[in-house]
């Protein structure tokens, strides 16, 4: 799954470096504060472990073999942040020294495998294993599913990054400049192999290693490499910024017209809005009426607070602010529910 150079455009590579950078920065900051002097040797040794485990061949059902990435077991044992760093370092050495994966594409590979893979593996493992005992069989199942999910999410992200290249990057003759297959080809091509072989390899290796650790080194499954729960004090500054942004939300009302691609059926019927759409679409001709799909699906769901304008508010500005407060409240409530479902961070000791 390592993306070589040449398959993604420089702008896609740059965007994925930019997307990965905050995760790396947060991971380094969190882990340095938790591990202090242990930070350097732990990341180094686990990166080396990640590198070596990627070379192991694993027998799969059906007589085939596959390779695991080790990202799931790293995230489960070390926590997502340390796991993400260790796998990123392993990918960097693979790219720079062994030519496995591109240098320009390193950001993409890290984002898909190290970052998304670690976060998905850690979240899935926590939700399924909850607060069960370290020796519980449920943890083995959780590890297997976490590994499978992590590998397939990484593959899906890779497939999407490949699949958007032809539409976005082609020459004047329409020739794709990088990965040549559209989403309709890239996604099934990548996912078939990962849903059947690569994901299975990762899932089985993760489950097998966890089962071995349960018997031989259960203390490693309770390693304190996870960062302490932040608490509200540590997020006060973030909340402050959130409050400022909330008050600035009505600025959106200053813009005229609707965002490109967010049109309603009425926009297609209104001559003035049709002219705006055409101007924003580089002069492309619009269909005569409302596109059938937009007409059919526009009534599928009626939002309770349509257009961020509660019915009982006369002022648009206050309606926006109130909608933003309500939205933030919903997100906090959802996060608390998910956290409850995921159980506590520390497992119950035997």
């Amino acid at each position: 799954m390592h993306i070589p150079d040449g398959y993604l455009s420089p702008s896609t590579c740059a965007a994925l470096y930019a997307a990965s950078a905050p995760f790396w920065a947060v991971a380094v900051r969190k882990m340095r504060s938790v591990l202090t002097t242990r930070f350097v040797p732990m990341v180094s040794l686990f990166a080396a472990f990640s590198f070596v485990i990627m070379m192991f061949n694993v027998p799969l059902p059906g007589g085939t073999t596959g390779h695991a990435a080790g990202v799931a077991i790293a995230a489960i044992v070390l926590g997502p942040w340390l796991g993400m760093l260790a796998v990123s370092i392993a990918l960097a050495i693979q790219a720079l020294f062994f030519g496995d994966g591109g240098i320009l594409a390193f950001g993409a590979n890290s984002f898909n495998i190290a970052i998304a893979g670690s976060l998905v593996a850690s979240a899935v493992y926590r939700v399924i294993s909850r607060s069960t005992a370290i020796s519980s069989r449920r943890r083995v199942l959780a590890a297997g599913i976490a590994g499978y999910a992590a590998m397939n999410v990484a593959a899906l992200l890779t497939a999407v990054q490949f699949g958007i290249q032809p539409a976005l990057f082609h020459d004047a003759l329409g020739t794709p400049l990088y990965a040549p297959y559209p989403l309709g080809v890239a996604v099934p091509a990548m996912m078939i192999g990962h849903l059947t072989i690569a994901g299975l390899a990762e899932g089985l290796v993760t489950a097998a290693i966890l089962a071995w650790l349960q018997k031989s080194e259960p203390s490693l499954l309770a390693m304190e490499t996870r960062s302490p729960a932040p608490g509200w004090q540590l997020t006060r500054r973030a909340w402050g910024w959130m409050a400022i942004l909330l008050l600035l939300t009505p600025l959106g009302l200053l813009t005229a017209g609707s965002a490109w691609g967010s049109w309603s059926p009425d926009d297609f019927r209104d001559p003035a809005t049709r002219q705006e759409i055409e101007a924003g679409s580089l002069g492309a001709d619009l269909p005569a009426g409302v596109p059938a799909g937009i007409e059919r699906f526009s009534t599928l769901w009626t939002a309770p607070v349509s257009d961020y304008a509660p019915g009982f508010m006369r002022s648009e500005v206050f309606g926006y602010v109130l909608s933003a407060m309500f939205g933030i409240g919903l997100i906090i409530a959802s996060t608390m529910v998910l956290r409850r479902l995921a159980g506590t961070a520390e497992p119950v000791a035997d």
Partner: protein
Amino acid sequence: MAGRGFLERSLDGLLRASDHALRAERANERHGLLQRIDPRAKLVSLLALLLAGALSREIIPLLGLFLLAAALALVPPGSPRAGVIRLWGITSLFTAVIIAPALFMTPGPTIAHVAGLEITATGARTAAFLFLRTMSAATFGWVLITTTPWSSILGALRSLRVPAVIVLILQMTYRYIFVLLQSAKDLLVAARSRTLKKPDGPAGRRVAGGLGGALLSRSIHLSRDVHSAMISRGFQGDVRLLDAPHAGVKDWAVAAVAIGVAAVAVIIGR
């Protein structure tokens, strides 16, 4: 034990990694022209040429970049030519498998018929783009790694403002990869020598899990030992690295030429 099981294939993978590292180190020991250029200049040149290969939208400049990379890999006396030819074989095979369907699937005017399928001009062009980009990127990377010791590459990264702690981690990881490779080889050989029947299927997965778990356990214990050794030598969490020697005018002239070539490739390929 009949046939090659997963133990043998895993061992092959580990041996290939060790072999690659050994070849690269041997190539670095030569006193060639490229070996004498400052690693920072080489790294900057590599990045410029990689970027040029990614930005160019025409076949001719991409072909030019690939030929330049091939010349740098093959021409200097004592270059590990067998290694780069093997690299080309693997890269072109992998790329061919990926790109072959695009020859027929990409819409465009037909230029040839093969086994009842129509190769389109657009398909051939996109295949050429991908092939030349991947081959030149892989070859430039090969040239860097066979003319620059890994420790010098890390020093160059530090000069390019990569944080010292990351450079130290890369350095330590590289060293301990070979420690763990040896550990993994020992585990695999021990497992292989203690089995009569090829352990595939569920038994094989248990063995693989045990090997992976044992390796993880060794990594964790080794990290604790390394940490104790670092603390006992005065490490307090701050990372300080020695500054690399300054690059000379000649080195930066080489980098300027590489950047110039990259710029020409991008301009021609716009």
